């Protein structure tokens, strides 16, 4: 520790990247302050209805759309533990092909498959990553039936939820505490190692002098809702505020080099399927399988389901489809996600007190992959026995036959009519040695600043094509250890 007036390291954000960073630095004996904008929501408050969960745990109550020619609904967590508190806990390692392409294109050092294995293993062990413990719920079995009929490659995706009780509350916080969000898994360990965690503390500005960051300016929201502005001094700052907020904060603080210029997403379109038999998907965990036949460009998997979400998805064609709500017990939801290589950006908005403007323009590749994905998922679901499939597309209310479905293998969906969403955003401050393409070096140190690091989803050089939490944690661990070793 330097002196009692400053901390050795500030970690901004307590999500997947922040928790790993805090734990690693505190474990190495450094004085660490974790500053988290969101609340420290007690577990007894978890597991509420999805509207309440949104208001409680999500940034701007989930009202953070990404604008572009086709707007995309986007949500991210804002609470102690970040998005890991509201995610589904599906765990992936980045495919070998993806890591190789990061190395070749961005000159990312020290991140080959074998170099990352120990970090993945460390995280998997900490979070007890494992397959679903019980019998698969019906929505998963039906999915499996369709996949078998199509003969495609499939995998049950392990999750960070050992002993999952299938309560279907992943998105509003796991009340049983089985899912290992960071508040459950790593942050208590970071605290035990000496890290101090301050919730309701939003960092507004990084304070700089020349090539160094001297600390941060932060807003603390008090119990009565008033806001106090404070300055916290530190020797090192790790920004782990997530793919939308890390570049916002950096740009706000005058650090613009390759920051926020390359936002990547996995655009996602949901399809709901009505089966002849009751599925009761609202009472069980979401479907656990992922089709990896078309990886990493396209993945097909299971989506969260509730009555409200069904209505939301049918909402594009509500006058025709509202009566389908009568059969809600027979429905389940699935998704098509594409790797996404459109152009995206993150900018602090000039108006307001720290607003962010997110933009992403779907590429033709994205649209083509999406169209094929819809064709394949609809075929799969019809082959699984669905009577009808309802894509979240205004001009295509329903697909009833496989022949109707395969049309989209060759034709492009009407982009303007798609109701796209995403929960996977990254690469807004890519890292690597290719200075012309990256905002930080291979270990997350921001170019042109000596003591500032990014260590969250924003650092991924490009879209991983699979659920990102595992890769965010493995890279964050690697970077934090590299930092500690270099002291």
């Amino acid at each position, binding site marked *: 520790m330097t002196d009692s007036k400053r901390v050795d390291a500030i970690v901004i954000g307590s999500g997947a990247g922040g928790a790993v960073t805090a734990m690693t630095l505190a474990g190495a004996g450094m004085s660490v302050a974790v500053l988290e904008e969101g609340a420290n929501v007690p577990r007894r408050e978890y597991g509420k209805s999805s509207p309440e969960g949104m208001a409680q745990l999500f940034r701007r*109550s989930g009202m953070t759309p990404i604008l572009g020619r086709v707007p995309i609904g986007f949500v991210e967590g804002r609470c102690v533990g970040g998005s890991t508190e509201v995610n589904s806990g599906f765990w992936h390692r980045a495919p070998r092909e993806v890591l190789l392409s990061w190395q070749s294109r961005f000159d990312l050092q020290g991140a080959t498959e074998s170099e990352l294995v120990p970090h993945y293993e460390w995280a998997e062990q900490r979070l007890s990553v494992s397959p679903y413990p019980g019998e698969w719920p019906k929505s998963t079995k039906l999915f499996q039936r369709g996949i078998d009929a199509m003969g495609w490659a499939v995998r049950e995706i392990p999750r960070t939820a050992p002993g999952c009780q299938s309560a279907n509350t992943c998105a509003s916080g796991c009340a049983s505490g089985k899912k290992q969000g960071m508040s459950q898994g790593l942050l208590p360990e970071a605290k035990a190692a000496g890290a101090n965690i301050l919730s309701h503390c939003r960092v507004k500005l990084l304070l700089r002098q020349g090539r160094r960051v001297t600390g941060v300016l932060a807003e603390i929201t008090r119990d009565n809702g008033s806001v106090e502005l404070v300055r916290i001094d530190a020797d090192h700052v790790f920004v782990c505020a997530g793919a939308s907020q890390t570049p916002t904060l950096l740009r706000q*603080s005058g650090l613009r080099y390759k920051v926020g210029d390359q936002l990547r997403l996995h655009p996602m379109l949901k399809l709901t399927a009505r089966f002849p038999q009751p599925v009761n998907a609202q009472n069980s965990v979401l479907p656990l399988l992922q089709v990896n036949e078309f990886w990493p460009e396209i993945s097909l998997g299971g989506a969260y389901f509730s*009555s409200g979400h069904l209505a939301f998805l049918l909402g594009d064609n509500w006058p025709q489809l509202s009566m389908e*709500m009568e059969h809600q017990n027979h429905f389940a939801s699935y998704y098509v996600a594409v790797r996404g290589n459109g152009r995206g950006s993150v900018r602090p*908005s000039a108006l307001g007190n720290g607003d*962010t403007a997110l933009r992403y323009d779907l590429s033709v590749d994205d649209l083509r992959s999406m169209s094929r994905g819809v064709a394949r998922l609809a075929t799969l679901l019809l082959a699984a026995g669905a009577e009808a499939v309802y894509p979240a597309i205004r001009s295509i209310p329903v697909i009833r036959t496989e022949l109707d479905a395969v049309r989209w293998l060759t034709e492009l969906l009407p982009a303007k009519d798609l109701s796209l969403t995403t929960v996977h955003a990254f690469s807004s401050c890519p890292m690597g040695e290719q200075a012309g393409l990256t905002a930080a070096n291979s270990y997350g140190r921001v170019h042109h600043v000596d003591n500032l690091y990014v260590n969250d989803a924003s650092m991924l050089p490009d879209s991983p094509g699979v659920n990102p939490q595992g890769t965010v944690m493995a890279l964050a661990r690697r970077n934090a250890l590299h930092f500690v070793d270099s002291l």
Partner: protein
Amino acid sequence: MSPPLWTWSRVAVLVSGVAGSGLFLTLAFRSVDLAGVKDALTAAQLWPWLPLGVLSYLIGHGVRGLRCRLLFGRDTPLSTATASNIVVVGYACNNILPARLGEFVRAGMLAERTGLPYAHALTVTFVERLLDGIAILVLLLGGAWVVGLAGWIQDLVNVCVIVFAVATAGLLLAIFASNSLLALAGAIGARIPAVSAPLIGLVAKVTQAASLLADPRRAVQIGALSLLVWLFEAGLFSSLLNAFGVDARFATSLLTMGVTNLGILAPSTPGFIGTFHLFCSEALQSQGIAAETSVAAAVLIHIGFYVPVTVWGAGSLIWYGTQLGNTLAAARRARHPQSLEFREGIPMHSLGVGEPPAPPRPADPIYEALTRGLLGIRPGPVDEDARAYATNFLEHQLASLSSYLRLQLRLGLLSFRVCVALRYWRPFSRLPVETQSTVVQWWAYGPFPLGRQLFRPIRSLVLLAYFDAPRAASVQLGTGPS
């Protein structure tokens, strides 16, 4: 530990104040015939003009109290009378203590009375001063526009226009784009480390102060009250000019009041002796009023400005039993929050506290009407509890959008309301439910892309909340064939 009372900087302030007063007094009286001034004073018709002028000035302090209460928020346990008394104590202390210490006494007393942190009371005091500056400039410019200008006052007004433009732009920026202002301060601080901490501290304070004005309705009320305060103060000037038989327009009083109040920013003794006299008399002379009469008027107006408020303030101090030394010390400590604090074990320096958020406003009936309209598209009964839940959710979620998107949505809803009102000659929220559903269906699912775009978030939120409302699941759904 309290800081020592007599530091070098305070001695310097005192000495420069006395020197400034001496200099300005000399300048004010240099070229006038003192006997003429005395004659003008003796001839002045004090009744009824002096009491009227003083009354106007004191009413201005009542308005200050009202504004202060509004700035603290309606829920604060502070009556308008108490707020006015405390404001006057601040003025009285400025009249007897050096270096505008009255501002700290006022902030200290306000904090003691309201139970809010000293830092917040200082922020309120700061925003009052900022608004006063802008109001004085507006009235000064208004007066100047009517009566015309001469000589150095023209230069002063030119400078004022620039200052006013910059201050207003700064205030607007602080209200609507506080982060950009902080970013600018951060960028300057990164290049010039010596100014970093004070500059960021200042900008932090300005943005916190400005946040008090973020609510447009409140901002308009407070702005209007600020103008009123200074109009009443100009009443003191106007009334006492009448006492000298000067047939001046009210605009002359506005101009004189403005110039005087800007002038007293220069260093002087407590009570603004010298500065007040010089700037007041020069402003009057610039309007063609004889030098002796101008100086005499300045002397009388200063008395009207000084004595009643000092007496009122002293009375209030005794009434509230305030211990001046302690109050002052607490407020000054809050002004220099450089001391280190630990929260959750993290060392930090506080730079000030903003006000608690305003209580929520009553719901806009449009949200209920939109919800009814949307739910009416689906045949069958509507669960009223779930509907109410969806209405609240809709309103809350739309309010959570970023400023830019919220603005877009408000404009969209405004167009919607106007179009519907023009079509049906009734506001949307007063239409029968069936008509509301027809209208919503046309906008949300019709041929008009902008309408569909506007209704996309609205319909999504309503449907999500209605069907996921805690009781809706059992009441509404799950009844299909199994």
